[in-house]
Structure formats: C-alpha cells, structure tokens
C-alpha cells in the first residue's frame, strides 16, 4: 500500500528525474534507471513497472524521441533522447520544482 502511495506522490518527480537523466545524452530504458539512481545518490530506485510506462507516456507527449540501436553488449535496445520541447519542459519543471521546494522548505522552517 505504502509503495503505491509513494508512486502516486512522486509521479511528477519521476518525470522530472527521467528528463534530467536524459539531459546529458541518450540512454536505453535500463540506462535511465541506472542514471537516476546515480544522480540521486541511490535515493530513488525506479522499478521497471514505473519506468517503462513513464517513458512511453513522455514519448507520446513529444518530450522524448526513441530509436532502436545496438547496445554496448551488441543487443538491440530502444534508446531515448530529449526533444527540443522536452528540453524546454525540463527547464520549466526544474524552475517549478525549485519554487515548490523553496516554498515547502520555508514552510517547514517557521
């Protein structure tokens, strides 16, 4: 139950993290998961059950493009990359996140 709640709460966060993970360059699905784990210092471990639906959703929203390519160990894999609107969206969501984080931090200080 608790897991489900957290997934719902972090829905928007997951999108932001995926966009951020891809901002440095294209990655395949598992690569995105690894990169998120890495840049959050291991705080977020994205399960495949959340990751893949999110990737497809973002692709359909036009923020990601995908292409089939062979991976490091010579296997065909689907690589995702940010589109121009995706990059724009990342900037927008980042500033939005900062605004909210600042507001919450202030609220908790008082």
């Amino acid at each position, binding site marked *: 139950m608790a897991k489900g709640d957290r997934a719902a709460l972090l829905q928007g966060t997951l999108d932001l993290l995926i966009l951020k993970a891809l901002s440095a360059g294209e990655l395949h699905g598992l690569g995105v998961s690894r990169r998120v784990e890495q840049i959050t210092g291991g705080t977020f471990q994205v399960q495949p059950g959340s990751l893949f*639906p999110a990737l497809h959703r973002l692709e359909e929203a036009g923020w990601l493009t995908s292409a089939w390519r062979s991976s490091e160990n010579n296997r065909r894999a689907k690589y995702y990359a940010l589109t121009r609107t995706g990059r724009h969206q990342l900037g927008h969501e980042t500033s939005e996140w900062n605004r909210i984080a600042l507001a919450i931090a202030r609220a908790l200080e008082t």
Partner: protein
Amino acid sequence: MPIFRTLRNLARNLFLRGRVRREIDEELRGALAALEAEHRAAGLSHAEARRAAAIAFGSIDAIKDRVGDARTGASLETLARDTRFALRLLRRSPLFAVFAIASLALGIGATSAIFFLFDAVVLRKLPVPDPDGLVVASIGRSGGTGGTNNYSLPYPQFEAIAARSRLLDGVFAVNPMGRVNVAIGGQSESAEGLYVSGEYYRTLRLAPAAGRFLAPDDDRGGRAVAVLNYDYWQRRFGGRGDAIGGAVTIDQVPFTIVGVEPAGFSGTEVGRPYDVAVPLRTSASLSEEPPLWNRSAATWIYVMGRLAPGVTLTAAEQETQAIFAEAGLAAARSASDQQFAREAIWRLEPGARGIHSDLRQSYGRWLRLLLTLLGAVLLLASLNVATLLVARTDARQREIATRLALGAGRGRVVRQLVTESLLLALAAGALAFALAVVGSRALLGIAVPSAEIVPVHLAPDARLLVFTFAASIATCLIFGLVPAIRATRGGCLNAVRQVGGAPGRRLLDRVMVASQVALSLVLLVAAGLFLRTLDRLWAQDPGYQRSHVLMFSIEPRLAGRRGDEVPRTYRRVLDAVRGVPAVERVTMSAVRPISRNYYFVTSFRELGAITLPPERRVRVAFNHVAPGYFATLGVPLLAGRDFDDRDAVGAPRVAIISERMARHFSGSPIGQRLGAGSGAREVVGVVGDVRYARVKDQPREVVYMPIFQMAPRDIFYTPTVEIRGAAAATTLLPAVRDAVTHADPAITLFEVKTLEAETDESFAQERLLAILSGYAGAFAVLLAGIGLYGLATYSVLRRTPEIGLRMALGATPSAVRRLIVRESAVTIGAGAAAGLCAAFLAVQLLRSQLFGIEPTDPVALAGAVAVLLAIAAAAACIPAVRAARIDPLHALRLDT
C-alpha cells in the same frame, strides 16, 4: 500541435497495434536480458542471475499492460477487445442472443411507439421560435375557481385587448372553418380551413416558405387572400412557386393565394391540421350566419398571444383582465350581455403546446395509461434478460474466477461483462426504433380510424431516437451491472469457492421469476378487463337496430345552394334513394345514432301543465329528423304518431319525445305542450329510449323535432341520410350513389359508413386498449413462462446427481416429477399471490377506462389466473418430465 500529436499517437496505437506491441515486448525483454547480463558480470551463476533479474524486474506481462495503459487510446483498445470478446461469446450462444435482443426490442419498441404518440399529442411544443413565450386565453367564471375554463371567447373583448395590451407582443384569434369546398382551376375537393386574425403569423414568429403571410391589413379589410399549409401546397400544387398569386375558390368565394406556411407547422391545435388559412374577417362573406363581431357574450374564437420580452404571465394576465372586463361592459347590449361581462374572467395560461386540443384532452390520459402498461412489459422483459444474464455469468463463474486469480482487476472484468450487455442493448435499441416507427403509425390508424388527414406529425425524430436508446441502455446497464458486480464480489478466492452455484443465487433467481409471474398476472388482468369492456360495449342495447343501416352525409351548401334550396335538395336526395330497389326505408337526421361531430343539448322548464323552477329544468339532447326516422332505425313508437309531410314550415310546431322524457309529464304527454312562447311545441309522439350519439352514455331524455319544419338558417349542421336495406348495407352503396348523382350531379356523398362500422369506430380507444393490453399480457406471460422453464431446467440440471440417487434408492418417476413440480409451484404460487394483490391495487387506476364491469370483474380475474396457470404448468412440467427420465446410473457417475 498537441491535438495533432494525440491523433497521430492514436492512429499509430490503433492501426499499428501489432507492431507497437511487438516493440514493447522486445524492449522489455531486452532490458531483462541486459539486467541478467549485469548480474552475471557481477559473478552470479547463470540460473542465479536469471532469478535475480526476474525478481528485480517483476512480471513482464504486468508491465506490458501498464505501458499499454499509458499509451493514447488505451481505453478505446480495451473497448474494441471487449467488444470482440463479447461478440464471440454471443455468437457461441445464438439462442440466448436472439431471445434477449428480441424480448428487449419488443418491450422497448412497444413502449417507444406509445411514447412517440404521447410526445406528439401531449408533450411536444409548437414548432415556432420561442414557443415558451406563447400564452393561451380562456374564460373562467367568477365565484368558483374550480370547473373547466371555456377556451372560446367573444370578439369585441379580443379586439380591445389586441389594440390596447402593452404587455402582450401580439394577440391573435383563430376559428376552425371545418370542411370547406376548395376549387382550383375547376377541380374541387373538400379541405380543412381555418380563419386567422391579422396578427397570427407575426405573433407565432413564422417565416413563409414562399410568398408572404396575412398581415393585419388583410384582416381589417376582409381581403380575400389565402395562405396554404406546406403539406397542402405540396399535395395540391406539387410545391410549385407559381401557386403564389393563383386563384382558389373557397365555398364559391374567390380568394388569391399569397403565401405558404413553413414545413412542419400545422397550426396551433394538436390533432387539427388545416390546409388553408384565410382572414377572420372574410367569414362575413363565407358564412351564412350574421357575423358576431359586436356580440360581447357570444364565444366563438380561440385566442393566443405572446408575452412581451421580460413580462411575466401574471402581469400580462392582470393587464388584459382589466381590458377584458371593461371592453365587455362597454360592448354589452343587453342585460344578459352585462351579466356575462360581470361573471366572465379572462385567464391566461402557458401556451407553448398550443390551444386547447380535443385530441390531447381525450387521448392524453389514455396514452399515459398505455405508457404505464407497456412500461410494465418493458420492466418484465428486462427482468427476464437479467435472469438470463445472471445464469450466464453463473455459468462463466469458473472463467471469471480464473481471470480474477490471474490478476485481472475487478473493474476490468465488470467492464467486460457490461460491454456484453451494452451490445445487446444497442442491437435491441436499433430494432426497437424501427418497431416504434412502424408501430406508432399502426396504432394511430387504430386509434383514429377515419381521419382524413393524419392528425399528428409522426416523422421519426431525435427525441424518439434518444428515448429508445436511453431506454435500452438504461435497461441493460441496470440489469447487466448487477450480475456483473455480484459475480466478481469478494475477490478471486470467493469466486473460486463459489463455482457450482452460490448459495444466495437461487433465492434471487426465484424472486426474479416470481416477480415476472406477478407482473404478468397484473397485465393479464388488465387485458381481461379491457376485453370484457369491449364485449360489454357491443352487448349494450342502444335502443335502435344497428344492422343493415347505411349512412352518408350531404352538404348542399358546398354546391352553392342557399336558403330554401337546402331543404329542397334534401328532399330530392331522399326521394332518389327511396326509389332504389332493395332500399326498405330511408330517412334523415341532424345527429347520427353514433356521432363524432355533433351532440346537441338544450333544456326545458315548461312540460305541459308543469312549470319547473330554473334549477330543476330538464336537460335534454335533441335531434332534427325526417319522417320515418324511428322506423328506419327500429326505435319503437310507443304512443302517438311519427312525423309526416304535414309537419312542414308554417305548420303547427311539433315534437316527439323519448320515454324517459315522457315521465316528466303528468299523464300522457301526447297533445301537451313542450316549452313556452314562440318556441313551444306540441308533443305528438313518444318513442323508446336510445343511447344518444354514443353507446357508452346512459339513455337520457331526448327530444326530436321535424327537420323539414326548420327554417333554413336553423339548419346549422350537415345532416345524415340513413338507409335500411334488405341486404348487407354496403352492397346498396353503388346503386344509392348512382341514384343521388342522377338526381343532383352537384351533390357528393361523404362520411359514407354503415352503422355497425360507425359503432365499431366509436370503440376505437377501447379496442386499442384491448389489443395493446392483450399484446402486453401475452408477451408478459410468455416471458414469465420462459423464466419458469429456465429456472426449472437449471434446477434439474443441478440436482441430477441427487435425483439419480433418489431413483437408485427406489423413488418412482412420478415422485421425481412431483419433486421438481413442487419447487416450481412454490415460485408460481408466491408470484401469483403477489400478482393478485398488485392487480387489485392497479385495476383501481383503470376504473375510468372500463365500461359495464367492475375492476374486480370475476370473469377477467379468473380468466387471467387460468391463462397464467396453464402457461406456468406447461413451463414447470416439461423439465419435470425430463427429470423423471434421468438414468440413475448415468446420473450417479456425473462428477459434481
């Protein structure tokens, strides 16, 4: 852009579904393999790596589902999949599909057909812009708030209101002309005419389909101009534009056609469409009666108006009430006019549905009753389909349980089951719509048998479509959702455990079937009562002999005859018919023995030596008849003499009275005087009582006066010629027609009908009630029978091992039959008992529609119960017989 992208995604997900799905699959398997490879690289063994990767990844199928759900058009795809699945299931049980669709379609179709009529007659607003701004005027009497308002009004007050009201934006008057003779280019035919005042079209805010409308000036000047109804324009002129400006002769008076009304508009009175409208003021030249323009107490026009923007009905009513009272007093020319002006109160009511309609008045209540009746059938059909659906979901319990156990969401399973119901609903709705369109026409034909023009527009419209499909979908949702929710309740474990029949399920089944039995009994009782009513109507003795009588009407005035020419033409026609062989007797009367058109009433205070106080005056129906009337119709002459050729204009005024009227006199009424002053008549004969004009009315006091003693201006009706023949009445017709044409080629016969046919038509409402309630009852009892049969069959199936065991232990076949029948008998008994109670309550609502019997008529009740029991017994016995034939060895070997 986002919309474009959404559409592209949708198209890709729907049309390249296979490819999209393959790609998702490949992507996920690739990722799993990569994960496995990572674990092996970290030093795990082959099997350990695979296991660890699978645990970390979770179920690939579940992820695939979630990815699919995240993609655009996911719900559409699910719907398509559910639909395909449902179609496959239905195709596998075609009998169920056909039965469910047919019973729903019949139930919904019949209800929709009645709704269609009800909508056209009662609910629909006039097809004019902003109908809600319209108001209808009437006159109430001061003192009492009760009683019915009079919708015909006097002219001077109308004129004053039209001129002075500020709160009404337009007021108009109409007056039906009745049948008129319309001649166009030498071709004449009869048509329906309407007088309208100048503001008619402006107030209704109509726009002409061609030409122009009547304007206030046309009316004020009494200009001979005419506007055609759209349908008439199409029928008579083929919708040609050159009809405008053409000449048309109405009752020998030349008119010019100036315009055509818009399509779909057929006047302000439901059930009385007209063909041609002319200015109200032209009635001065068209009618023989002196115009009533200045008579402030003569009520003859129907008035409607339109509220000015922002004005309430109450405000407009107050304003016009004052004008009405003032104008009434100002125009009063006698003491009785003044009394009228003081007592009459002008009233306004909402007029979106047009002026007071006889059709709406007489059929509205009755259609509501039919709607209830058929609504009950619909309920029954739904119950039946619900029972079937429950049985079906039950049979699929194992499948559903498996799906729940494999992780399908409950909502998902319910959605799939409901999709199946909706498919049934759509199929049934489409069939029902067709049925309603055809059915409502047929019903109208039975309800109004001799209408020359179809009295209401019955073009299938969006309202009917919405009603039909809303009814179908609502029915199926309610009755599809319940079994679906029940089947999935309690999750997968419970569902698996319940395989083989839920404990609560059998009771629910029984209750549903028992309520079908109850409902069908109520409908059967109603059908029985209406059939008995029809029977009793025919059995009534009307006081005359109905067989072998042929009737037709003639109207010399349509041929241009005026004054004395009118009765002279009557005589010529009567003489001509008398000469036809096989005609035994011929006569003429103002009112037919069965009449839809006329009902004349007056009252008398002076009866010979007796003078009654005004409040005890005798109200009588009267008729004008020619010599031989009583002999032709077989009404016995009890005393005195019949009218004869002596009773002509100028001769002493005489009357013949009915037996019931004779009782008001002291002693023999023969030779006594009836009435006082110049209107007094000498009673010369007494005849048997008859049911005047309608079979359903009780015999009442009737006074007959000789038609040939009337001054031509007092003949304000179109009389009927009655003929008694030796042979069947209709065989006389060709010879009679020839004789009349020979005697006077200008005279046409209309409303030709035998007295039996006229009687039959006067029972149209009762007959339609009997037919429809019979349909409802038969359908209901059939459905209940099928329900019972299904229940018993299922029970036998379920108890087969038990029965086998019983038989193996020595139970006789008849004991087994009893066992199964007893089970059904409980259901039938409970249903019938509940049905009888419900019927006792329900029939009280029918009381006003019954004739000659009580709502608790024992014949109808016993008949209904007998029919129900016969069907129920058959439905219960067939499975019982089958149960008795069970081979015990085979049954015991069955695995339960």
